[in-house]
Structures are given as C-alpha cells and as structure tokens.
C-alpha cells in the first residue's frame, strides 16, 4: 500500500461524507477510470456505506427509568456528602492503600481463615471467589472497595476475582449485613435468590435463604430493590423493609421495619418491648447460637422490656433473672431457666 493508495481511501471517505473539493473530485475520478478494479472497489464501498445498519433504529431508551436511576444516584451522593461534611471528615475520593487498610485486610484474612471456608472456584471464567459459612458460623469480610460484609450462618457470598471499584457486583445466598462504601457514585449490586439490590453508599440487611421470600431492611442511605431481571425498583429509605415474594415477580409493598432485632445477629443490639419470654428466648438462641430451655411452661407468658448492646449471653440472662424473678443455670451447651411463671 503506497501513499497514493492511503490517500484514495481518505478520498472515498470524503466523497461519502460530501467533503470533496473540486480538485479532489477530479483526483478520485481519474483513479476510478484508471482501472476497472478501482471502479469495483469504489462501488463496493458505496454499497457497504449504504447498507450499514443503523444500530440505534430499534433502540428506545426509557427516559423515565433513566431519570429514576439518576435521581437515586444524585440523592444518594448528596446525602453521603452532607453526612461526610457534617462529621467533618475529608471527602473520600479514592481508596488509599495505607497501612490501616492493609492491616484491615490482613485482619479480615485472618478472620477468614479462622471462620468460614474460602476457596477458588474455577469453573469457567471469570474466576469467582466464594466465602461461605456453615451451621452456627459467622464471619465478616472487607471487600476491595472497603465495603464491609457480615455473613450470617449457612450463607454464601460470591464475587469475581476482578471485583473493583468500577464494577461492584456480588451474589448472596443466605443472610448478610452490608456496609457499602460510596465510590464515585458507582453502583453496588447484589443478586440474591432472584432479587436485585442496588445501592450507592449505604448499610442494610439482606435475607435471602433459598425457598423463602427475600427481604431487605435499610439502616442508612438509599436502596433500590427489584426482581433480578427487572429494573422496576422500589426505592427504600432508612427504617423501611421490602420483600420479594416467592413468585419472584414483583416487590411486595414497602413498610416500616417491624422487627427491632432484625440485625441483632450482626451487632448484638437487642431490644425487648413488653416481649414474652418465649420470643425473648427465640431471639437469644438466634443471636448467641445456643439452646435455652424452660423448666416451667408458664414462664413463656412472662413479659420483658429491656435493651442490650453487645452484652455476653451470661449478662443478658443475669439481667432478665434479676428483673423477672427467675433463675438460670448452664448445663453443657444448654441453659435451663426456672421460676414461678406468669399467667
């Protein structure tokens, strides 16, 4: 291909875009006439140009959906910045690989080794990392974007090895509490048992065990919750929850969070408000992974009002026994509670 040939292609291009000067028109004309082959080439390119399909012809962007998504992003970001300013912290711009961060990652790796199982998944690309917990196991994990995940028992979290700030996507089966770091307005997406949860920077609990409705409960920030294959999201504010029914078709309506102890498994903050001892025991068994028995069935009717913040089970039971006129003793892995009982 000589210089002249290169020029010819530019000339054909200019012809198609109507950019030729008189002089160039003549140049192109004499090139076409010099060889039959040239004329053919020219005709082929002309046809190719005409027949180039117009990609956007059957693409109709949905303005309303786009606007919803934009508003959600803009509001989340604004809240985040206002919060940051209010706390007088510098704006988090990029993730710094400081000592603290490396220490945090090292800590989380140690945690991983001590709790939960960790293995490489090598079926097909991309490589997936999987973290799972068994019966009575919990673990926490710091993702590469500094977002933190608490994984409850019998759960599994998966994400691509190349997880990064620009592409934040994980899969969950089971229950987890997320504290997602805002990263330049980029979405963080969680797929779980047919539900899609999208956030920018927020914290929330997501319960998605197989064959049960998927439930999301928001603590801070904004969350968009929808069926996995659909963008008709329900937008949730802090203090609200929403459920995706077992049909996986549509989000059932959002309402204020009913259960005050929805994240007690993660932070050990427990609240009892005139709660029967039976319910108290259910919550404690769940949070502390233990077995609690009542000596006297009438005890189940007794009611308690109390708040605990991260206390040991021993201390919780001690407080209950002082206020509620009952006693407890430990027998192996089981706690026995005895007392008068209530009508």
């Amino acid at each position, binding site marked *: 291909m000589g210089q002249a040939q290169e020029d010819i292609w530019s000339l054909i*291009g200019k012809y198609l875009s*109507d950019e030729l000067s008189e002089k160039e028109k003549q140049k192109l004309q004499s090139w076409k006439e010099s060889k039959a082959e040239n004329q053919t080439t020219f005709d082929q*390119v002309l046809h190719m140009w005409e027949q180039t*399909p117009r990609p956007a012809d059957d693409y*109709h962007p949905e303005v309303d959906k*786009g606007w919803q998504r934009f508003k959600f*992003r803009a509001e989340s970001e604004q809240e985040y910045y206002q919060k940051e300013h209010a706390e007088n912290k510098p704006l988090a711009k990029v993730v710094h690989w400081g000592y603290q961060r490396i220490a945090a990652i090292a800590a989380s790796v140690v945690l991983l080794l001590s709790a939960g199982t960790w293995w490489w998944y090598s079926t097909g690309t991309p490589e997936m990392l999987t973290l799972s917990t068994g019966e009575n196991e919990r673990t926490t994990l710091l993702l590469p974007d500094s977002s933190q995940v608490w994984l409850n028992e019998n759960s599994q979290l998966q994400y691509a090895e190349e997880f990064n700030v620009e592409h934040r996507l994980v899969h969950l089966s089971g229950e987890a509490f997320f504290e997602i770091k805002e990263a330049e307005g980029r979405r963080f997406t969680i797929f779980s048992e047919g539900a899609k949860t999208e956030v920018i920077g927020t914290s929330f609990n997501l319960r998605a065990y197989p064959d049960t409705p998927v439930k999301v409960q928001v603590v801070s920030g904004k969350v968009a919750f929808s069926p996995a294959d659909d963008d008709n999201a329900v937008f949730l504010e802090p203090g609200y929850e929403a459920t995706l029914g077992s049909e996986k078709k549509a989000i059932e309506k959002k309402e204020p969070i009913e259960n005050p102890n929805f994240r007690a498994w993660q932070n050990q903050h427990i609240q009892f408000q005139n709660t029967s001892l039976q319910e108290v025991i259910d919550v404690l068994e769940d949070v502390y992974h233990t077995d609690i028995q009542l000596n006297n069935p009438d005890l189940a009717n007794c009611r308690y009002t109390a708040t605990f913040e991260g206390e040991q089970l021993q201390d919780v039971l001690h407080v209950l026994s002082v206020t509620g006129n009952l006693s407890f003793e430990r027998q192996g892995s089981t706690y026995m509670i005895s007392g008068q009982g209530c009508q």
Partner: protein
Amino acid sequence: MLIHQPTIALGLLSLYRRLGAYTASYSKFKPNPYYTSQDRQDNTFLIRLKEEDEEKFMEHIFRSFYAPLCKTVYNITHDTEATEDIVQDVFMKVWRRKDQLDLSQSVKSYLFRSSVNTALNYLEKNRRNTSMGESDVNNLRYSNNNTEDELRYQEVSLHIDHAVQALPPRCRTVFALSRYEEMSYAEIADQLSISVKAVEKHMGKALKMMRMHLQNFINHST
C-alpha cells in the same frame, strides 16, 4: 445519483445486487441540524430555571437530552447497558459541577461532546476481539416467512455491523459520527479535539478495514 454498473461483478457486489429491493436509494446527506459546534441556543430559559430550582433544571435537561444522547452513544458502543451507564455518568458529572456550569455556551453541545468522549474512552478501555462467531449467524431470525433474500440481507447487515465493531476505537467513533450523526469533518474534528486531517485518515482507515473484513466473509461464503 446513479450508481455506475461495474463490468466485473465480484461476489460482494452481486450479493448486494440480489438485495436490490432492500437497498435504500442513495442520497447525499444534508448536515444534521441537531448537534453542531455552532449550535447557538437561547439559554435565558435554562439560566432562569437553574437559578430558581436546580433540581427542576436538571430534570429538564435530562428529559430533553437523555434519549438522543443514548442513541448517539449506542451508535458508537452497540451495547445498551454500557450506553446507559455512559450517559448517566455524563449527567452525574454535570450535576456534580453544576456550580461551574457555563450557561452562555450550549448545554446540548457540551452534553454531546462529553458523551462522545466518554464513549470513546469506554471503547479504548474495553477493547474486545470482535470476530464473527458461528452463534451470531445461527442467531439470525430464521422463521418461515423470511425469504432467502431477506435472510441474506440480515446476514450482510450483521457482517457489516461486525466489521464496524472490529474497528479500532477512534476509527469506529469517527465512522459513527460521520455515518449516523451526519456530522461534517470539521465538526467531528472539533468534537474529538483532533485535526481534520486526522478525521480523514481515521475515516479512510475505517472504510479500508471494513471492506477487508467483508471481503473475507464473501470469500468464505462462496
């Protein structure tokens, strides 16, 4: 204009010949009035709206330009999800810098330029090998009421589309702006901050590569 009948009918041409029924008559393009660098609009309304209510201003420009920007970007990327992410990012940038927004300039031109350049960066970042796969050909909509010609036509379009996707990012962007947005070389040069000479070169290279790509397809299919 009349298309000169070639004396030697090469495969590609005779193939197109059979598709005569589907070939649009060739007409010279008029410059597209939609986006031009000389675009001067009266921004008094926007300036007032922005002063009164920033969110209403944002919604107004979003609803006015989201769809046309998506179409333009899609012509470059051929990927709906990437397209919508790119256009969202462009509006986010405007929102973040709304205090520095210069409304004496055309908002439309700014959004357009920003979208095209973001799309180009996306292509440069995500260079994939696009070669024609068996599955693509099998994915053609075979149905009983498709005539053979129609199928051939679809196949040709598909191959041309692949040829476009196989172009290097800059050639592909220049091609899309010229072919679909019908912009002049001067406008394209201005949008991409390159010289008109460079636009000519990219365009020539695009045509040459596309023809080679299609030549291979013809040789394989005959």
